[in-house]
């Protein structure tokens, strides 16, 4: 009997995924453990490996961008000695070749992370009318079911949404990828439910830039971003109260300093995590950050690469952005938005002098971290950036 390849739950909580690419074609030989396809989840592209050696007999779910539930047979593998004839009738009804994904009842109701969204028919209808994502809502009905009131309380009125938004020049509509959906849902949830406040600070970089120049000359090249990650890591050690997460009925203070770094990828924003960042010498930190960023851009992050960060840094300085405020990445309590290093006039004594200045904005979840703690963290961070020898731990 041919063996079914079922869509695996490659990460915890995964309920569906999209076959992103087949690496084997029907007729190709497969070794046990060999990568045969890639699956896109809301977080990353993951590899599916073959359990058994054989020949790929048939593809049941094409790489067509349609999400299928975990456990769905996506292909059939012929074992040694089996001929293609064995495919007929294999996998029961599943063996019919052109497997388009089973139609899904209500696209708006799908949140892969939490599984099925329970919502009343009326709530679903109103959400569609208002262009709202049901998954982002908190249900107040029995067992958390989303009912009419939840939609009405959450969103703009139907009349406001009824204004046609079509651009006169027409448009191209891009269906949402799993990742885009997840980003939309998580950010909406975060911005709507986390009480953000913002603290800004300017750091002078001249000494740090001079130090970096010297190090580069000595063959020890590190980026400004590496230094910022290191400074954040050390500052979190000094002000551990900022290394916190909101846990609903408690505040969690992390023992390790695990820093998530936002990486822009063609498919959207990813935040791989640099573990125990405070304990790593600069050379290791720089190398690991580089690897993580590459993996993120290639869609090769493993779940352990992006799960469980304690603090996030988002740096848009390289685009010349002067300053910005980032949306918190729950359950983390803080995210640091880093602006561009630029020459600005600063007042020193009674004189105005030119200096290289970088503006940073800390977004804070006020439930977990108070203003004074955020301010202490920023002060520690600036101290480290402006007295850069304190960052040095080369090996």
């Amino acid at each position: 009997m041919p063996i079914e390849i079922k869509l695996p739950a490659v990460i915890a909580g995964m309920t569906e995924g999209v076959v992103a690419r087949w690496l084997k074609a029907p007729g190709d030989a497969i070794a046990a453990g060999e990568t045969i396809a890639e699956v896109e989840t809301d977080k990353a592209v993951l590899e599916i490996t073959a359990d058994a050696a054989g020949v790929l007999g048939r593809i049941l779910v094409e790489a067509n961008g349609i999400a299928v539930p975990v456990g769905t047979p996506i292909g059939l593998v012929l074992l040694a000695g089996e001929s293609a004839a064995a495919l007929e009738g294999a996998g029961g009804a599943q063996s019919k070749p052109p497997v388009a994904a089973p139609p899904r009842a209500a696209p708006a109701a799908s949140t892969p992370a939490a599984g099925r969204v329970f919502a009343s028919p009326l709530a679903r209808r109103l959400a569609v009318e208002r262009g709202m994502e049901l998954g982002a809502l908190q249900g107040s009905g029995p067992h958390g079911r989303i009912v009419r009131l939840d939609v009405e309380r959450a969103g703009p009125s139907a009349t406001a949404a009824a204004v046609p938004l079509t651009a006169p020049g027409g448009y191209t509509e891009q269906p949402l990828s799993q990742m885009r959906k997840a980003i939309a849902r998580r950010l909406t949830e975060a911005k709507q439910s986390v009480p953000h406040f913002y603290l800004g600070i300017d750091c002078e970089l001249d000494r740090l830039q001079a130090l970096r120049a010297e190090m580069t000359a000595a063959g020890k090249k590190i980026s400004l971003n590496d230094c910022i990650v290191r400074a954040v890591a050390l500052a979190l050690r000094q002000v551990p109260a900022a290394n916190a997460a909101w846990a609903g009925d408690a505040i969690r203070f992390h023992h390790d300093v695990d820093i998530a770094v936002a990486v822009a990828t063609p498919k959207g924003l990813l935040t791989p995590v640099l573990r125990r960042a405070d304990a790593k010498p600069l050379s290791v930190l720089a190398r690991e950050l580089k690897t993580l960023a590459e993996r993120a851009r290639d869609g090769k992050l493993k779940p352990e690469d992006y799960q469980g960060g304690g603090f996030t840094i988002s740096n848009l300085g390289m685009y010349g952005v002067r300053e910005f405020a980032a949306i918190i990445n729950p359950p983390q309590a803080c995210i640091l938005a880093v602006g561009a290093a630029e020459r600005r006039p600063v007042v020193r004594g009674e004189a105005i002098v030119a200096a290289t200045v970088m503006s940073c904005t800390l977004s804070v979840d006020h439930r977990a971290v108070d203003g004074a703690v955020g301010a202490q963290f920023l002060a520690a961070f600036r101290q480290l950036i402006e007295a850069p020898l304190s960052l040095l731990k080369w090996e």
Partner: protein
Amino acid sequence: MSKRFDLIVIGAGPGGYVAAIRAAQLGLSTAIVEREHLGGICLNWGCIPTKALLRSADVYRQMMHAADYGLHASGIGFDIPAMVKRSRDVSARLQSGVKQLLAKNKVTVLEGSGRLAGKGSVTVTPAQGTAQTLVAANVIIATGARPRLLPGLEPDGRLVWTYREAMTPQSLPKSLLVIGSGAIGIEFASFYRTLGSTVTVVEVLDRILPLEDEEISGLARKSFEKQGMTILTGATVKSLKRHADSVTAAIEAGGRMVESEFERVIVAVGTSANVENLGLEKTAVRIEKGRIATDEWCATAEPGVHAIGDVVAGPWLAHKASHEAILCVEHIAGLASAHLLDRERIPGCTYCHPQVASIGLTEQQARARGREVKVGRFPFVANGKAIAMGETEGLVKTVFDAGSGELLGAHMIGAEVTELIQGFALGKTLEATEAEFFATVFPHPTLSEAMHEAALSAFGRAIHYA
């Protein structure tokens, strides 16, 4: 030492006894205080015994129409005392059922009148014997209501009746004046008319069953008039002159004063809440428009004191009282799943002939709220089961929101509609849209198919009616 409870419920009607049982289920030590009958008015002098009487009237009507069904029946008649006895037996049976339920749930039942006596204590004074004082963290007042008295129309128990006398007649009055055309007035009007009394209904508003959809009110009126009832709307009874065995009523209708003589009068002009002698004066409990004011969880302004049912704001229906009982107790017990009552999802039923049942907004209310509506109608005359039953008088009317497809209201008149309305109630609770009503398979042949068709009809899709 006073006895301590987690909860004391004052009043054992469909609000109070349900509260006590739910509280006991949730592990609260619970006492219930009742001064007269377990089961309250509903079970002893209201919903239940009148349904027993109306059933007798229904069977009698069927017997009168036996020939329509190819049956012979002769010597058809009725025995009023036997009818009343059956009705009382039904109440007694249910009353003992409530008693058993309370006992099984280990609810302490105390006979007497309950009264708040300072923070967390309640005194119970039995008709005979000495009062005792109990202590409880929470008190639920569920003392219900009594017939409203209007000056000059005061019941006397002999010629001018309230529902109590009306449901225990010794003989059939030849002529009857019913003042008030709400559910109670209309049910008695229907009962006595079916048995042969000459019945006149006087309603101060411009239509009978004034809480119902206007169209349904109109159909009900037509049907009752066809049965021989006299219906005067926009009319008031100015005075009642009581004689030895009759009453002369001065009725003003359409600007004219008419005097008519009736053997008996039933006054059914609403109720007054039983808020007296509860010790409320010394508490923060507020009375608004004669009823105890509460928040949405049935809590009064006095900490630990709650109120449910007819003693608070309406609609004054047994099932509303029971639902308030549940939500109030679950809230007291801190149950996370406790849910508020949506007043637009409370069905109302009137067991006249033909029956009337409804839920949600009337067409007029929906339009008044600025909703764009789609209205569906399906008559029983186009329903196979209704024709087979010989019950072709009836209509199902649906009111949907044109945009969202929400069922805003449903209004029915006809055979067994009081049993059918729960289908729309469930639909409203589940927030079904027209699509779910379309997609639901209604069994054939049933009267309920008229509900399906009425939903389809709102969107121009009825199959069996053009």
